[in-house]
């Protein structure tokens, strides 16, 4: 047994766990803070994960966290006063992808966000400028689930290493 193995050994004298990069952050739901956090996530996982997977992870997390920043602020009495939600984010590298858990203390997520959906209708006369975010989240994730407990939203999903488009 090498000295490194001894240091990593668990109670039964076996090597206890492989070291894998993880990411955890508590952040204010502001676009600039979301951007800085995404850049840190890229740095954390770039040596372990392909550019393609990292790009999909970054896009999904941007969509989820920017939705919180844009829609989830709670009103505090006066109409011009609102509370910026606090986001808790965890990402763990697994054998088949990146498992993500995101919670926030903003207003409840409307149920239709997590229901299967298609693209907004593309009317070439009047192109849609929004409505793509949840479509992208659903397309790029697996095992997407949502739970509301007390004053927090809980969202969990996995970004697989291999992406198979739902609409090839």
């Amino acid at each position, binding site marked *: 047994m090498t000295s490194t193995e001894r240091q990593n050994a668990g109670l039964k004298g076996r090597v206890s766990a492989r070291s894998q990069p993880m990411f955890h952050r508590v952040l204010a739901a502001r*676009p*600039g803070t979301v951007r800085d956090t995404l850049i840190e996530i890229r740095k954390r996982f770039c040596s372990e994960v392909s550019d393609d997977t990292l*790009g999909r992870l970054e*896009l999904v997390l*941007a969509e989820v966290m920017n939705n919180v920043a844009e829609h989830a602020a709670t009103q505090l009495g006066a109409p011009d006063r609102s509370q910026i939600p606090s986001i808790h984010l965890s990402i763990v590298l697994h054998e088949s992808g990146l498992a993500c858990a995101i919670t926030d203390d903003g207003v409840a997520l409307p149920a239709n966000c997590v229901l299967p959906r298609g693209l907004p209708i593309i009317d070439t006369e009047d192109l849609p400028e929004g409505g793509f975010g949840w479509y992208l989240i659903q397309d790029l994730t697996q095992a997407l689930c949502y739970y509301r407990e007390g004053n927090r939203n809980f969202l969990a999903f996995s970004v697989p290493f291999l992406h198979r488009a739902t609409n090839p």
Partner: protein
Amino acid sequence: MQLTVTDTGPTLVIAVGEARIDAAIATRFKDHLREVVVHHRKPVVMQMGAVDFMDSSGLGAMIALRKALSEDLPLTLEGLTPNVERVFRLTRMDTVFDIRPEAENEE
């Protein structure tokens, strides 16, 4: 905002120097460029090679620009990086824009 606008005569060339077109800048990006393209009223070529991330708010800004140009004027996007190309492709908006590889240097 990192944007270089050059009027070459027949076209308006906009080199985007921002590394990210995301929710933090999408509104300013859209408002500024909409004014520029409406003012010039000519075909637009956007050089996108320096942009390595775009989210759906950035896509919305690009669509707003397309809508600000009259339909007979092309809006060409050059040099999309993989992360940016993915957003256009997954949302089928690659059918709405004229997307081309980075132009060769012409003598």
